[in-house]
């Protein structure tokens, strides 16, 4: 796990990807079911978009890349939304407009435009998997902390011994920022990415 995070961090994933995807990461980190649902949606849409974009990017003129890529992402996000609505309606209710807003997510668009557009299928699939899994892991960690400590529940079920000690601030907007900041700082500390990135800057 440490090596995986390190690999992500060395590619500059957390600072760039989490800055761009901070919105949906925080929005879905209030409940572990929402985090897993959003994680799956991000991972699948990213993966499918990468495959399609890397396959057809040579036929798309430069001026049409933005609309074409966004419509490809929207198509996949709409399909995922409909499937989730059929099988996991609670998750769709929890995510609200954030699930549809994935269609214009800067993270998925950046992945399509900067990686899938310039490389082959395997490279873009690997990049999409790395980013998607990284974001899912971050969402799940944040959700575990926020749901158990903020709501005293896990997977929607009450944890009796935590009921009297819950920190309600963690369940709200402030909690989302606080937990994500702490998780990101902990990853940086554990992997020593700070020193590496600073070293890179000096070079």
């Amino acid at each position, binding site marked *: 796990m440490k090596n995986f995070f390190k690999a992500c961090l060395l590619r500059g994933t957390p600072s760039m990807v989490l800055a*761009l995807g901070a*919105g949906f990461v925080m929005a879905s980190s209030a409940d572990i079911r929402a985090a897993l649902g959003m994680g799956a949606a991000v991972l699948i849409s990213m993966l499918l978009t990468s495959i399609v974009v890397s396959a057809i990017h040579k036929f798309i003129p430069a001026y049409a890349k933005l609309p074409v890529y966004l*419509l490809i992402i929207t198509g996949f996000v709409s399909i995922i*939304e409909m499937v989730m609505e059929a099988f996991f309606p609670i998750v769709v209710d929890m995510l609200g407009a954030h699930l549809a807003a994935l*269609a*214009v*997510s800067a993270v998925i668009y950046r992945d399509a435009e900067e990686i899938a557009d310039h490389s082959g299928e395997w490279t873009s699939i690997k990049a999409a998997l790395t980013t998607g899994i990284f974001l899912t892991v971050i969402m799940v960690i944040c959700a575990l902390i926020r749901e158990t400590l903020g709501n005293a529940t896990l997977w929607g079920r009450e944890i009796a011994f935590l009921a009297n000690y819950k920190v309600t601030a963690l369940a709200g907007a402030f909690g989302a920022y606080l937990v*994500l900041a702490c998780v990101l700082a902990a990853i940086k500390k554990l992997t020593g990415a700070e020193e590496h990135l600073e070293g890179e800057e000096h070079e």
Partner: protein
Amino acid sequence: MLTVEMILGILLAGLLSDNYALLHFLGTGAVMENERSTKQSVVLGLGTTLVMLITNAICWPLNTYLLEKVPYLQTMIFVLVVLIVVEVLHIIAKKVLDNYCHADFVKFAINGAVLGLCIHNVEHHLSYVETLVTSLGVGLGLMVTMCVFAKIKGEPVDEEAIPASFRGLPIALLTAGMIALALLALNF
């Protein structure tokens, strides 16, 4: 019929207690990765507000008269409208403005707040005027948030005072959290 008090209330909610970027997490990415000066952030924010206004002005009738029968096409049509609006504004900017930034138009299109607002307005069954006022309020709220963050980022910071692992995005998130906490107080 909307009264002046109601309009002011909706505008203030969009600016403060219902701030999309800080409290709804829509458009947060645009605020967090914004590296521009305060002045450029005002331009970016005004552009986003304009896109929001026009997009919602088109999406409301489309949803009311067309998409009610085909709700599964909602996201696709809304994204298409956003893209068309951004492209038309891009063409106009090319002809009218001497120095415009192409990257700004990409940012308008991939701003989650624009699409999120369209869906929010439709889900809450707002009237046409309410939709437009909400769009204006939310857009201005996003602009103010961008400017606040641009100003904070522009100020000299004693890096040594921040623990090494909290430098960069974590401290920016904590700052946003503090502002969100202050804005939450206005909800009561």
